[in-house]
């Protein structure tokens, strides 16, 4: 199968997948019941007529299929409706909160990539040494530590005991740190980013270390060493580049890491991002927000997986297409 045909097939699969998620999501939300009744019925002074008129106002009296296609056509045009709790357009909220999420997630991934390259080179070039075992043990601890616990311990030490870093939010409401809003924003980012770096490093180091150990055993590395190259160039020039092939194709995993760590990280640090927003929407049953956020997350994840698959065949021509 040619590359073009492969990519076309993946593309069609991706679109089918997103459509499938939209059907399942709609069916499941529908199964919970009439949102107007759930949200209003318990409140005082709400009569059946009010519920009926509000239901009609939101178009919830139509048949399931009618409502599904109305909704589908709306989200295709990126119109996710209005948040019930915040009374703001969902699309606008997703952008604003999404930017806040990226503000801590991107440094979290980039710094972790850098740190894990350094650590895994240290470990892999000294396989089975004390350093290597220390790195593996560290990764084991990193994988066993609940995210929220590390966040809370960081807050306890740096905000409460030492009193040098803010424990919540993305900005100070009054008196920004050092009188500058930029520094104030960065100052608030330190703790959440540290927490993300810790967990991403634990994951990435394991992947990179084992990949690097495999590469360092191969013949072309021996050849490079035999030709008299200094070890530093063998490791950073030859081995690392090849060790990165599997890691680069973990693009999807990186993206999954970002989305998976967002809810807990943002809840611990009361960060105004998508993850915390999503949890809040679920707890308060803000239907348009839940559905809009779920669809956006799905589209982003499917796109990341698609790009990963394509990157895979482009970077490594040996991959068998199928």
């Amino acid at each position: 199968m040619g590359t073009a045909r492969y990519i076309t097939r993946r593309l069609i699969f991706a679109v089918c997948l997103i459509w499938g998620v939209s059907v399942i999501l709609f069916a499941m939300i529908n199964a919970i019941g009439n949102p107007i009744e759930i949200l209003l019925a318990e409140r005082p002074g709400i009569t059946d007529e009010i519920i009926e008129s509000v239901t009609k106002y939101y178009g919830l009296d139509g048949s399931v299929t009618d409502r599904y296609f109305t909704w589908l056509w709306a989200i295709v045009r990126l119109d996710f409706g209005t948040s019930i709790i915040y009374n703001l357009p969902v699309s606008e909220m997703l952008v604003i909160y999404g930017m806040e999420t990226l503000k801590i997630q991107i440094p979290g991934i980039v710094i972790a990539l850098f740190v894990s390259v350094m650590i895994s080179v240290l470990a892999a070039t000294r396989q089975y040494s004390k350093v290597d075992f220390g790195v593996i043990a560290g990764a084991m601890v990193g994988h066993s530590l609940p995210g929220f616990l590390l966040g809370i311990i960081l807050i306890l030490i740096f905000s409460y005991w030492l009193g040098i870093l803010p424990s919540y939010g993305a900005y100070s409401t009054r008196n920004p740190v050092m009188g500058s809003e930029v520094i104030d924003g960065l100052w608030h980012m330190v703790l959440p980013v540290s927490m993300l770096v810790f967990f991403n490093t634990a994951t990435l180091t394991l992947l990179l270390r084992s990949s690097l150990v495999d590469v360092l055993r191969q013949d072309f590395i021996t050849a490079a060493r035999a030709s008299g190259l200094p070890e530093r160039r063998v490791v950073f020039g030859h081995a690392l580049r090849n060790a990165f092939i599997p890691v680069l194709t973990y693009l999807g995993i990186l993206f999954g890491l970002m989305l998976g760590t967002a809810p807990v990280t943002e809840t611990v640090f009361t960060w105004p991002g998508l993850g915390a927003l999503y949890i809040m929407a679920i707890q308060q049953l803000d239907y348009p927000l839940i559905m809009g956020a779920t669809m956006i997350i799905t589209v982003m994840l499917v796109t990341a997986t698609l790009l990963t698959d394509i990157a895979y065949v482009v970077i490594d021509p040996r991959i068998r297409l199928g």
Partner: protein
Amino acid sequence: MTGFIIFLLATRRYMAIVGLGVLAVFFAAALAAPLIYSWSAATLVNLSQALAPPSLTLPLGADEMGRDMIARLVWGARVSLIVAGTSVSVALVAGLLIGGLCGYYDNRITFVTMRAMDAVISFPRILVAIMLITILGPGMASLTLAIAISSVPVFARLFRGPVLSLKTRDFVLASRSLGAGDMRLLFRHVMPNISALIIVQGSISLAEAVLIASGLSFLGLGPQPPVPEWGAMIAQSRSHLMSSPHVVLVPGIALFLLVLALNLVGDGLRDFTDPKAGRAIARPA
């Protein structure tokens, strides 16, 4: 079990032995919880000793509602182990069935099923679980079910591969030529050969399940108060972190120790069943 311990001793994997010991303590605590402390000791409010620091009568202190931390800790171990154990068992059975059937039969239905599994895997597990709890409503049962469903695709994909290669092996073909039916071949001949994989994956998944369960409970999506779930305990006591850190640190350390012990034992089990394989560590949530 004895063989496993001897293996760990002989290969000097002392950390895994420590892990086993810690696990044994947690299991004993979870089993004996109703004998040592009544459910009401773990749930009834007693404000006269609210936020009491650790002392002789209350070795780990009391939480913000004046409940004995040890009582909440042992009942919490019970909750965590029940949620993790049930969800992993359910997921293992479902994953084995789906993975086994999809590996054994190769047709349109199994192709579509595996594609659906691949699609779910591309979502972070904690997000899948969060979406499921949105529909099911928060609580212990829905938490267990959500974790189980979110791990089925992982198991299905993991078990399909070995089944795919085992079904063409000579001993399977031999019993087919003797007239054994598909179900007999699959469950009597193929499945027993992946039992080691099942045990190893099960133990690692337990660690992951405990982590995800506590994370979701921390977010308020797990068992509701006053059920003493460790993650939920941390979330509820957070506002007292500065004045009495023990209300957060006690369940936190217990959680960390339990997950670490499960990971260490899983790691040891992997080396025990397949000494050639690399080290096993659970994927993060």
